[in-house]
């Protein structure tokens, strides 16, 4: 039983990371109308940047985090203006969608190469701000890192929920997502909305990157942007791309992955946990193509 609870908690922590990355994608998708995988590069770079600011330069962790968010937002908004806007300027049809996606994938490979060029290919260890000490409740041992991940994600999600549902800019963002033309007629400035969306998406991606860098046994390495692909089933599973959908999808998949890795017999072979989210995603697509919480408009062929 205590094993089960430990696995569930670490699964929820993993799911929170998936949810954050998926959320980052969804916010940009809703603000700009195109899917942009370049947030995966932010996940990767932010882990290295925080390491650089915090460990190499000795800045306090909070300052390092803030600096990283600023640098990444600036970089991503610059890329949006220089690279993605010229592509989507003439509408957002099938071709533009694909072009943005591919340029994003290209940039992701550029990021992979760059971090290795700058920081080397050896995994780096962050001076773990949460510590890997165990928290013992009776017979259940939970790493405080997992609890921190869950806590930070919850706080961030609440902040996003408040921003989207209760503030003026949040209403504007939702308006632009549902009908850009009508929103503009109402006097909403699309540039401001997209800037806020990029900032929110970057914050989610930066936190995901930093927390991924503290994973047990992993450290910061050039393959942590793989999570940007592993978060994709969460996006599908969640449905039409709401905050709730991302969180639900991410946590369900994280827990399933954790339980599968923990309980699968050795005969299932290596990597079974990793493949479970994809299999679940395909099964869900067959049974219920609209996802757990979704409408089916944009995904059907």
């Amino acid at each position: 039983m205590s094993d089960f609870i430990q696995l569930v908690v670490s699964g929820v922590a993993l799911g929170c990371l998936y949810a954050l990355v998926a959320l980052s994608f969804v916010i940009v998708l809703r603000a700009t109308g195109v899917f942009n995988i370049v947030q995966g590069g932010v996940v990767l770079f932010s882990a290295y940047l925080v390491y650089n600011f915090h460990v190499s330069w000795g800045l306090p962790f909070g300052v390092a985090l803030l600096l990283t968010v600023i640098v990444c937002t600036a970089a991503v908004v610059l890329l949006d203006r220089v690279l993605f806007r010229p592509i989507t300027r003439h509408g957002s049809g099938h071709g533009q969608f694909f072009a943005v996606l591919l340029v994003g994938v290209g940039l992701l490979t550029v990021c992979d190469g760059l971090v290795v060029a700058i920081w080397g290919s050896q995994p780096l260890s962050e001076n773990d701000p949460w510590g890997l000490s165990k928290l013992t409740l009776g017979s259940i041992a939970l790493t405080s890192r997992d609890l921190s991940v869950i806590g930070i994600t919850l706080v961030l999600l609440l902040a996003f929920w408040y921003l989207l549902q209760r503030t003026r800019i949040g209403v504007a963002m939702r308006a632009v997502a549902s009908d850009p033309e009508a929103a503009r007629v109402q006097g909403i400035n699309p540039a401001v909305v997209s800037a806020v969306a990029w900032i929110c998406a970057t914050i989610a991606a930066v936190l995901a990157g930093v927390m991924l860098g503290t994973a047990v046994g992993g450290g910061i390495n050039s393959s942590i942007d793989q999570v940007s692909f592993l978060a994709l089933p969460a996006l599908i599973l969640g449905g039409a791309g709401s905050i709730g959908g991302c969180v639900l999808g991410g946590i369900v998949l994280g827990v399933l992955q954790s339980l599968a890795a923990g309980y699968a017999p050795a005969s299932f072979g290596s990597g079974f946990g990793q493949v479970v989210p994809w299999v679940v995603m395909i099964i869900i697509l067959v049974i219920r193509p609209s996802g757990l919480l979704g409408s089916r408009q944009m995904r059907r062929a």
Partner: protein
Amino acid sequence: MSAPVMDGTPPVSAQARTARHEAEVRKEMRLASSWWSRAGIVVFIVLGVLIPLSTSNALTISLLTSGAVYGIGAIGMNVLNGYAGQVSMGHAFFVAAGAFTAVVVGSKWHWPLPAWIIAAAVVGAVLGALVAPLALRLQGIYQLILTLGLVYIGIYIFTNWTSVTGGDNGVSANLPLSLGFVNFGNLVIGNEQYSYSQGLLLVSWLLCGLCVLLVANIMRSRSGRAMIAVRDAGLAAEVAGVSPARTKINVFALSSALAAVCGALLAAQLQYVSITQFDYTLSIQFIVMIIIGGVGTSWGPVIGALAISAIPLYITTYAASIPFVKSPTSSSGGFGIQPGQLSLVVYGLLLAIFLVAQPRGLVGLAKSIVRLVPRGRRAGARATG
């Protein structure tokens, strides 16, 4: 009642219009529509036979073989994306399936060249047709994610199916290049003896040319036109009696069969297959190839494959003289970039540059240069005549 308004043009008789339409259709239907594509085919065949038999430079042979082998896979990606407008990150899965099929049929059972090529193609087509109904429920990013899932599931299956794939260690592939009456693995013409790699180069280019012709032919057939119709106007195509579902299944089957043949030849080229070669970056490579070459053209994928294969090969060969590049043997540490990583960066940048500046790829570039010449000539003729 007013008389019908006459415009300035003289009335064209129905017969003349039909004749003109038929001439246009005939022109569309021709395999090689212009003199330079016909010349291209002749040059291709001559070079495809002459080069393998005349060079023994390992780098040239390796580059050209990769170009042809990856070219076949890129042709498959082009069918899927260029002609049918579907997106897929799953190409690497079918390439892997083809490679392991070839290992079993060619290397374990020692069946001859046509057998393992055809076996790979059949396995690829069947897998593609099985996956298609799933993939075509979705579109855009959702389709992309589903096909990406295929790569991860494939890696899991192939890693754990150790009796066939050797798991993480990989498996060596000694594929026979024999046709029965002629053995390309040990080719003797007159007094000249040719090596395995030269024979494979010959086989790869012949197969690559065959695939270009095959796809060009399919594209001007009824089912090829159905693919393009479904891409451009799905609803209109359906009204005209084309079944989008069946068309898309055909597209997936054809595309993955080509990917599997590419995998089989890749196994023959490297003489070693390991699942680590088939992750999603391989799928991305194919996408880069067709975009750099020219999406939706017959030769674009092959040209793109040649260009993309050249990058890692030359970067590795000349690593010492490129700034910031470490030689493959040096250990990490200090500022510098590994040759393999640099190729990835170059792919990404090329992709971005081509998509923004020249979305029609190298073939589009060549066409716009070629078009400049006749226009000048035509203008001159009009001025004198």
